[in-house]
């Protein structure tokens, strides 16, 4: 198993879920991260709690582009939880550095990285690639549409990738979280009934993986919320403050 954004709460919960369900099926879990310290804590944890070996690969998506660090990284499961919320529109719209970072991390620099592995999956003709997008990518809203547009690009990428890899025996899962109680949203007030814990998210994603679903919302209620939001005519939507 290869995990991008290994220290994210959702990655940690997903790793735990996979091990709890399937035991030490993967001789080694590859933890791809930009933060060695925090990831070392995770690697130790996996070893002590689950007797699970792992390898840390430090790769900072904002600046690294030498993929040779992945030369020995092979698996049939790729979990991608890389994401960066950045500042909201009010604070960040005219902040070019922030805007570039949001686009780079959520889309521009992420796609080539995943593509590097797509090649591998295509050759091995099996496996699963799981990518985390966001409900923000389903309709642009005034408060965070830069992030939303990058996630929208990622959504479409995953659609296309699924279609492309279907013919090669590789399955692609698009995960669409709504509000999540994770590091990314730390400090943001979220309405409780709509907010999923990393553990709940991991359960949903694991099921999608087991049963080869194409797209899953976290949690399910977001499918309906977004259905309604997408039904609002643009002439009305543009006037709403969301």
């Amino acid at each position, binding site marked *: 198993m290869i995990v991008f954004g290994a220290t994210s709460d959702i990655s940690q919960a997903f790793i735990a879920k996979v091990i709890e369900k399937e035991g030490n099926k993967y001789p080694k879990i590859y933890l791809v991260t930009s933060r060695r310290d*925090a990831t070392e*804590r995770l690697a*130790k944890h996996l070893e*002590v709690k689950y007797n699970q070996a792992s390898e840390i690969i430090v790769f900072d998506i904002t600046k690294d582009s030498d993929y040779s660090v992945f030369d020995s990284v092979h698996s049939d499961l790729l979990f991608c939880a890389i994401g960066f919320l950045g500042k909201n529109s009010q604070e960040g719209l005219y902040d070019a550095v922030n805007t570039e970072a949001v686009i780079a991390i959520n889309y521009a620099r992420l796609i080539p990285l995943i593509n590097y592995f797509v090649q591998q999956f295509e050759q091995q003709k099996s496996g699963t690639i799981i990518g985390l997008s966001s*409900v923000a990518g389903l309709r642009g809203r005034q408060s965070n549409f830069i992030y939303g547009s990058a996630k929208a690009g990622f959504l479409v990428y995953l659609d296309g990738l699924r279609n492309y890899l279907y013919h090669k025996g590789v399955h692609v899962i698009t995960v669409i979280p709504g509000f999540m109680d994770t590091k990314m949203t730390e400090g943001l007030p979220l*309405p*409780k009934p709509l907010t999923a814990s990393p553990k709940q998210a991991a359960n949903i994603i694991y099921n999608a993986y087991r049963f080869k679903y194409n797209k899953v919302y976290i949690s399910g209620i977001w499918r309906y919320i977004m259905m309604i939001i997408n039904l609002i005519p643009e002439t009305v939507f543009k006037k709403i403050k969301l």
Partner: protein
Amino acid sequence: MMTKMNKQKIANWGKFPVIETDMIASSDFDQLRKIIAESHTIIARGNGHSYGDNSLNKEKIFSTLKLNKFISFDKQNGIFECESGVLLADVLAVIVPEGFFLPVTPGTKLITVGGAIGSNVHGKNNHSEGCFCDYVLSFSIMVETGDIKTCSPSENSELFWNTVGGMGLTGIILTAKFTLKRIETAYIRQRVLKAKNLEEIFNYFETFKNWTYSVAWIDCLQRGETIGRSILTIGEHATQAELPVKKANQPLHLKNKLKFAVPFDFPSFILNTFTVKAFNFFYYFKQIKREIENITDYDAFFYPLDAINNWNRIYGKNGFIQYQFIIPANFGKEGMSNVLQTIADSRQGSFLAVLKLYKASKEEAHNSFPIDGYSLALDFKINKQLPALIKKLDNIVERYNGRIYLAKDAMSKKSLLDYVKTPETGKFNSVQHERINGETN
């Protein structure tokens, strides 16, 4: 789609008091440093399985639940190290199959290691093996300045002992290292004995002092002859030879059990004196024999309540308090019968009342609840008459030089609580601490 900054409602296990506050969790120490610096006052909260207001703060609560990593497990020497938000349940899941057990455990495994230190918890082996922190080798704690200090009985020992049972008032514990106990099996050999009154149960505690684990369930609604009617349970870790063949094959592995859940807050009329009386009656008489001896697994022995999710809902939405006091052994019988009489007179039934013999903690552990004596813990539903009853009970406990357990307390008087003395930083503060200090008596 983000809403305006709105505070969330938080309460601990007894659902009383409920406060509005900002609660934040993080696994990142740098982030935590920032949170501490930016807060006026703050308190650590583990799994919120204290009953009252000790891990609550109206400005900011730092939830340790994301400090959930294991660090090391030395299987040769039985030493375990993890971050402070790890649940005892998670520790057990890993250590039991390797032939180890927690040196001390409270009546629920759904608490964190940080909470075990903050309250310096005790269990059924308090009289024989002391409190949790007797087995803590060291911990690291982030203090007001954001520095991380390593503490042990020999290094930063003052901070160590102020933190042990210090109810979170010294800082935020990040990691802890403690020793484990070796076991041959995941089972307990238990004996269950009926005692017809207070006299008999006190004699039992004396007689069975040498057993590692002991606790009694007591029926608080009896008066006169049968006051103190109770059931004593004592136990030892079973050896492999003591197990029936079927269990002896895999002595350290338990089957997963079904869990039950209380799906919603019970309406308040469900629990009244009548139902509690009936429950207590059946509990006492379901055991027909005066004495049983058998083998049970550790979950059933230590954590019977954990098998029912959210059992605290049976007390309804207004919540309840658990009143746990201890009085010195020489006043034991007299004090207990006084308290039991007062409770029976009040007709405020308590479902669960637990009586236990305690041993004083060592002197350095000055914030710890146990003294040489007897402790009783019972639940009361919150209602209008309760504060008056608590006042009455507090006065009795005070008369016998007793004290109240801060991990349960939500409304007792200062003089019973201020054995916990920890230098004030001003930064780490709780609703409980403010309540106790604000009181002028």
